[in-house]
């Protein structure tokens, strides 16, 4: 035996909603939990509306983010404004958290690139459409941070399908070599075109792909907003405060992580049916005091209200066909 590795899994909430270990300190901040929950509800309501617009031909295409709200919100909420987000096309919730307007997202999916000149942080990347091809950008962005000695972090989100691409491997490999301030998040939504995870990879976990690149990979329950937020905060801050010099050789530095949102055995259809996919959102709700049905209604109202704004910005002619 010359090497031995292990992959940790992080979860605070059991599938039945009960708390199975002591919650992290931030979970006593009720206002933060409500904010996280509102963000998840908002993007789910937005998703329903955007899918309807797509089905009725008013958006050319739209990539649903149903079921991965907690991943996007957990990651984005642990970032600072000056960090840089490199999202995949299902990370609506992360963009919205960072200030992108709903109508800007609708503009983009309707084929109007003015939606990419969005209200979020000016250096954030737009949605990446070619799967996984934003991962090398994240390495480049992180290299710039390191070169200029800026305490900033690049956060790169992609799905399970992207882990089958060379782009992701090349980027993670380079990030490992140069100990770059970047966090890679693989959302195992099992929506990859068009095969299940077992036909994407024979790896037991996606997280262990980070180990191959020389840094820590951790699996997190992506339906558990508490776990996602805790893991995000820990990884992002570790990346930010990476030891500068001298660096360890070969050791596990808590500086770059790959998240593997565990969903073993679940079928994509499970998460489209109401109830089965609620997971994190509902369970988080139970530990939020002061939560009410009003939060969901707010989310729906907000999502629906922004559609006319997209119409206006896009010009009536394009939307009324």
């Amino acid at each position: 035996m010359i090497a031995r590795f292990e992959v940790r899994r992080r979860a605070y909430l059991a599938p039945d909603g009960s708390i199975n270990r002591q919650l992290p300190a931030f979970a006593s901040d009720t206002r933060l939990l409500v904010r996280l929950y509102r963000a998840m509800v908002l993007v789910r309501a937005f998703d329903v509306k955007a899918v309807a617009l797509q089905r009725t031909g008013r958006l050319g295409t739209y990539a649903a983010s149903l079921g991965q709200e907690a991943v996007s919100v957990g990651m984005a909420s642990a970032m600072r404004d000056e960090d840089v987000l490199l999202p995949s096309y299902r990370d609506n919730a992360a963009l919205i958290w960072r200030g992108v307007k709903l109508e800007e997202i609708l503009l983009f999916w309707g084929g109007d690139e003015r939606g990419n000149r969005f209200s979020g942080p000016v250096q954030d990347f737009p949605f990446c459409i070619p799967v996984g091809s934003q991962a090398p950008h994240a390495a480049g962005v992180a290299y710039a941070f390191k070169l200029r000695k800026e305490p900033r972090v690049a956060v790169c989100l992609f799905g399970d399908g992207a882990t089958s691409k060379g782009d992701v491997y090349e980027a993670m490999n380079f990030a490992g070599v140069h100990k770059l301030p970047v966090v890679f998040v693989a959302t195992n939504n099992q929506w990859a075109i068009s095969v299940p995870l077992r036909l994407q990879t024979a790896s037991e976990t996606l997280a262990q792909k980070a180990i191959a690149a020389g840094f820590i990979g951790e699996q997190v329950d992506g339906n558990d907003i508490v776990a996602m937020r805790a893991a995000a905060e820990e990884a992002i801050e570790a990346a930010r405060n990476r030891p500068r010099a001298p660096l360890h050789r070969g050791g596990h530095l808590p500086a770059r992580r790959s998240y593997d949102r565990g969903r073993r055995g679940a079928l994509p259809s499970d998460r489209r049916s109401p109830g089965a996919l609620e997971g994190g959102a509902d369970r988080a709700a139970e530990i939020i005091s002061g939560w009410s049905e009003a939060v969901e209604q707010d989310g729906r109202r907000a999502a629906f209200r922004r559609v006319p704004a997209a119409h206006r910005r896009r010009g009536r002619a394009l939307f009324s066909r």
Partner: protein
Amino acid sequence: MPEVTLVEAINLALARAMEDDPNVVVFGEDVGVNGGVFRATVGLQQRFGPERVFDTPLAELLISGLCVGMAAQGLKPVGEIQFMGFIYPCIDQLVNHASRLRNRTQGRLSCPMVLRTPHGGGIRAPEHHSESTEAMLAHIPGLRVVIPSSPERAYGLLLAAIRDPDPVVFLEPTRIYRAAKGEVEDNGEALPLDAAFVLREGRDVTLISWGAMVKETLAAADDARRRRHQRRGYRSRDPQAL
């Protein structure tokens, strides 16, 4: 003025750009410690340090993708692909990202990157080491393709490519890396990227050429001038087919 080879002119331009602008970074396979397979980057790592001049893993897609990420952050990355035959993994990055980042973000982000690679045949090398697929690259909207034909133009055009606010693929004619010699003043002056160089004025024929073939083209022009009296003979060819 010192006489230098084309590859030495490339080296001078890279050093000048790095000296003038701390945002310029140079990387690729063997460019750092080794100084490049053709010595184009020799001495740069010693002079500017291993953070600004570094060797990458053997991964061309990564090199082009790093360029995009760095450029969006305001760096001026100059990536090197060791031979043009290995540029094809970069096509996704060039077409889907580099050339359109400015447009698809409506100017919010831009991509001031340069991807350099040795180009063309005539060096007794096998396939993948003798490629000249510049026409393919030149058809990518938003991407500039530059091929110098002399040390002086290599120096001035590479400086222009690095200073340009948008992506440039800079193809260096391998056959004349050392065969072409000329005086180059290291004055930091760039040449225009969008203008043709008129090397010889004439009235009758227009010859357009680039890179290593410019030498042969000039020789052909000389030859045509010598045989001017035979032109009547050429006229008897099939003008309709032309």
